[in-house]
């Protein structure tokens, strides 16, 4: 079993629901949508974690591309604005994967993007609106 995090860009007229349906039904993949930004008639973005056999994932990606979806490796779409951050540390209490932590000695905010699962909890919790997810 393999896991890939994909950043999908949909053309304005592509419906997203059948696509995840096909990934499950035709390729035996388990898609886990981390974040979606889809509005009717507009280009959409979806951050999805796909689990399944490696060959099946590759086939699934080819299917998506055939359907007109742009498939990229998920980029680091989360941005911490240090100018706005007041190092209060509140975000660290909601970040389950511990991507956001305070350093032991100086108690400054440390952000390890590799651990982030784009759950958005910190974006909501931050009282300074210092963290944004950008598509």
């Amino acid at each position, binding site marked *: 079993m393999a896991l890939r995090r994909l950043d999908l860009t949909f053309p304005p007229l592509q419906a997203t629901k059948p696509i995840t349906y096909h990934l499950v039904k035709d390729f035996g993949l388990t898609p886990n949508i981390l974040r979606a930004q889809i509005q009717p008639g507009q280009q959409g973005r979806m951050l999805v974690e796909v689990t399944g056999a490696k060959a099946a994932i590759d086939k699934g990606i080819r299917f998506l591309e055939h359907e007109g979806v742009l498939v990229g490796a998920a980029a680091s779409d989360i941005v911490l604005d240090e100018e706005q951050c*007041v*190092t*209060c*540390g*509140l*975000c*660290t*209490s*909601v970040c*389950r994967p511990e991507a956001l*932590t*305070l350093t032991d000695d*100086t*108690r*400054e905010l440390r952000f390890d993007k590799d651990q982030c699962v784009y759950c958005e*909890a910190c974006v*909501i*919790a931050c*009282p*300074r*609106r210092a963290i944004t997810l950008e598509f």
Partner: protein
Amino acid sequence: MGEGLFCCLEVRNMSKSWDEINERIAAGEAVVVTAEEFAVIAQEDGVSSAAAKVDVVTTGTFGPMCSSGAFLNFGHADPPLRMSEILLNDVPASGGWAAVDTYLGGTEWSRGRGMEYGGAHVIEDLLAGKAIRLQARSPGTDCYPRLEIDTWVTLEDLNQAYLFNPRNAYQNYAVAVNSSDRTLYTYMGSLLPHLGNATFCSAGALSPLLNDPEYRTIGVGTRCFVAGAPGYVAWQGTQHNPNQERDGNGVPVAPAGTLAVIADLKQASPEYFSAATFAGYGVSSFVGIGIPIPVLDEDLAAQLALTDADITATIFDYGVGHRSRPSLGRVSYAELYSGEIEVEGERVRTGPISSTETARRIADEVKRWVSEGRWTLVEPLEPLPGAGGPSFKPLEIKTEEAI
């Protein structure tokens, strides 16, 4: 013989007067350290020797303090008006003062953007030097004939602008958890269901009132760093509660004393005043407060030497929607800052709301002000109510008939 005994007691229980300490500050000889530095000295050399060596200990805190705001005076327009309905960048300010005076409360929401922009954001923008739109309406009277005004003002344009924060620098606070099955959006941040996290809000061993837990040196008239400006303790803060339960060191184990503080907004800095929006709750202000404490004697020194391991806070379940929430035990600030505590047998991830990094900078800044002789210390003109004084009362809901 008698004299010898007296001498002996003196050595064992050193004490210094305010005047002695101020003379040393004036002469540039005072030894001034932060509360964290003092704890290290006391651990290495013992409390007695630390008390003898150090004259002043500085403290600091930087956390959300909802009860904050500013008095502003705009000056008169021509023809003049008596501003009775006032908007600053679309945020309502009080019109219940003299013609061109107002009080802008930090937690007020803007009409158009709701909690995303509020009174605290207006104050932050003023501090950043930005122009603020002032719209006001007046009933129109003989002495104030003008009916409305729509103009722009900067902090510099204002005659007086001073922070007057009715409740700052809470002496200790709660640790918040949530046992319910949905996320709660509170002034303590997002509280995840089923004890999913714990948040806390105090500078712990650096916090002003936790270093002088019995209000021996902090009272009305005490010099106080407020948002970067030199200010004063004006009064006891609202909801000041000296009768909170205390530990063996005399330190409260839950929210207790508070301070009302005043300072010139024109001398404040956006570095130490930051607007905040707590999702689903509203607007607040991070305010930096710092207070120098004279090391008067060994009893006070022992309290100044306490560390995060010695100071505790009580865990409250915010999942219970009543005024008195059940306590789920007590933890030390050292445990809270370790990132994880145990509540009801479960490991719970913790996160602060108060910035230690900024609190340390404030304690350092106050240290510099005192060391450079910019500040001498003032004995309180009047003490804050101490234990045994009036407690914080709840609001009972009464009908007119019952009165």
